[in-house]
């Protein structure tokens, strides 16, 4: 899957909100691509754009291409997109508590994509649902077909969500902060499960998160987003061991860590907040918060520069950074 120059804007009465500005992103088959950034940096809107679920009005994709297996999804009409969702691309959400319908038994909900996208008969659907529930690690799947979401724990519900999203074996799964609402032990289980399913069903995953720990653990490639733009991209090693953009450095330094200086140092925080997306400053959007900003950073927008190989950063002073501990 490839995204080129994706631009999504929201036309509100107060002005145009540039939620996503010219994002380029490529997901390699069978890998997990992380999309990282603060709240409001455009991660979720990017995901919704790919799904064709940007709330419209006021949202509108004004430019770009989203190419899945050679086809541009933005050329498809809503009816065709509905045929793509759940079959070729699926999505799971942050809140497993509310993303299942409370009045429908889970068996029916997991079966829904099959009913929509395949011509399987009742028995075959039932068999596949049971298989899928078993695959995502739900004990006694036969019996669980008739349970309701409120009878399950958060972790189990997220497993059900994954089963629902993966039952048609989509080529791409978008996971929007799938573990944020779960406690840490369950988080690890869910991440393992997603990795395992990815290998078995030959899916690619876009993992949206603000948890860098999760990224380091499971992602192959990472895209760091800031104010609607990709500011740094590269392999997980590029990003963590050799980060070039000051924003990425800031993020990495904001992770609490247990080491020799534990307790002596104050936790690092990036000063300020994300700029208002409808009133972007001139020049580099990160400049007002950047420790290394020079005068020209506030005037000229930085281009994407290659650091090495597949590692890119959108910064004038990239590479002058140093290590995350700096």
């Amino acid at each position, binding site marked *: 899957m490839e995204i080129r120059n994706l631009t999504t804007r929201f036309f509100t009465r107060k002005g145009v909100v540039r939620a996503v500005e010219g994002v380029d992103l490529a997901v390699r088959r069978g890998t997990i691509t992380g999309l990282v950034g603060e709240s409001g940096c455009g991660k979720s809107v990017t995901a919704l754009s790919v799904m064709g679920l940007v709330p419209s009005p006021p949202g509108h994709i004004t430019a770009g291409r989203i190419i899945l297996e050679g086809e541009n999804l933005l050329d498809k009409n809503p009816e065709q997109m*509905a045929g793509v969702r*759940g079959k070729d691309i699926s999505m799971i959400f942050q809140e497993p508590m*509310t*993303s299942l*319908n409370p009045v429908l038994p889970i068996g029916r909900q997991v079966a829904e994509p099959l009913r929509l996208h395949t011509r399987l008969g009742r028995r075959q659907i039932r068999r596949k649902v049971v298989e899928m529930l078993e695959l995502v690690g739900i004990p006694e799947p036969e019996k669980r077909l008739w349970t309701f979401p409120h*009878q399950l724990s958060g972790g189990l519900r997220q497993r059900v969500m994954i089963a629902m999203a993966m039952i048609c074996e989509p080529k791409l799964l978008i996971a929007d902060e799938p573990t944020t609402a779960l406690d840490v032990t369950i988080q690890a289980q869910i991440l393992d499960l997603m990795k395992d399913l990815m290998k078995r069903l030959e899916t690619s995953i876009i993992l949206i998160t603000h948890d860098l720990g999760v990224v380091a653990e499971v992602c192959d490639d990472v895209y760091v987003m800031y104010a609607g733009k990709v500011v740094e991209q590269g392999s997980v090693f590029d990003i963590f061991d050799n980060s070039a953009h000051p924003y990425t450095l800031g993020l990495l330094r904001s992770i609490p860590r247990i080491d020799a200086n534990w307790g002596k140092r104050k936790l690092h925080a990036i000063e300020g907040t994300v700029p208002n997306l409808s009133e972007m400053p001139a020049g580099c959007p990160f400049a007002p918060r950047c420790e290394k900003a020079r005068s020209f950073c506030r005037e000229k927008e930085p281009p994407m520069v290659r650091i090495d190989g597949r590692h890119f950063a959108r910064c004038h002073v990239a590479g002058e950074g140093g290590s995350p501990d700096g």
Partner: protein
Amino acid sequence: MKRLLSVFHPRSAEASEKATSGGKVLSALGGETLIGDILRSFGRNRTALVGFCAVFILVVLAVAAPLVTPFDPYEMNLDDQFLEPSGKHWFGTDRFGRDLFTRVVYGARISLLVGLVPSFITVFLGGFLGIFSGYTGGRTDFWIMRLADVVMAFPSLLLALVIMYTLGASLFNIFIALSLVGWAGAARVVRSQVLSLKEMEFVEAARAIGVRDAVIMARHIFPNCLPALIVLFTLRIPEAIMFEASLSFLGVGAQPPTPSWGLLVSRGKEFLFSAPWVAILPGVAIFVTVLAFNFMGDGFRDAIDPYMKD
């Protein structure tokens, strides 16, 4: 209805059938399901149970009318005019010597029919428009709701009178009049629920697996509105019964010799001082029935409400 209830739980259809045997049995059923909870809470409510029993008796009387009374509701017997209530004629007789108890019992059939059928149509229509309006939003929503405003701005009895005059007085037309008058309130309640439901993540999740809007409304939104619809339905029944009685009393509803309760009161009022029972006893029947349905409806609302709130 059974199919609808089975949405909550596969066993619920069975459970609701056994609902007739009272609170304790109810609480043993259902387990930890939504329906089980609702029935348990309903069963603990004394007033609601009293209402339920009264309604149950009424239904039995209406269904088994020919077995309950030996008389014919239409057979006149001019020798027996205006007999006072007695062991033979429990409610006395009217001016044509017809047994009043028999007429009241057969009248229960009409009242129940008028209570159930238009209420169902009302709630169905209101539910459909409410879901469609709330989910679609925008201009469609605006116009459907303005139409509802117009309907609600009319005094409903007046509106029903106009409809009845236009269509002609008959029982069937009462169904139509009641349905046309009642949908607006139901549509509003349902719409407001849908407005919050459609923002919930499971709707987004449904879209994310490729469910189309029409199917989302039918398969995902509708079942979530069912509790509200059930409450609206039960509370609509007494209103409809009252309405039919009023229309018939005013002469634009059921026509003689149909033993409609409103008509019985209307015809009896001429003899209010010489033979008061002819007007009063059918009036009591209306009173008791409406009260019983209200008790039951309130009980349902209280039992279901906690689920409507969250």
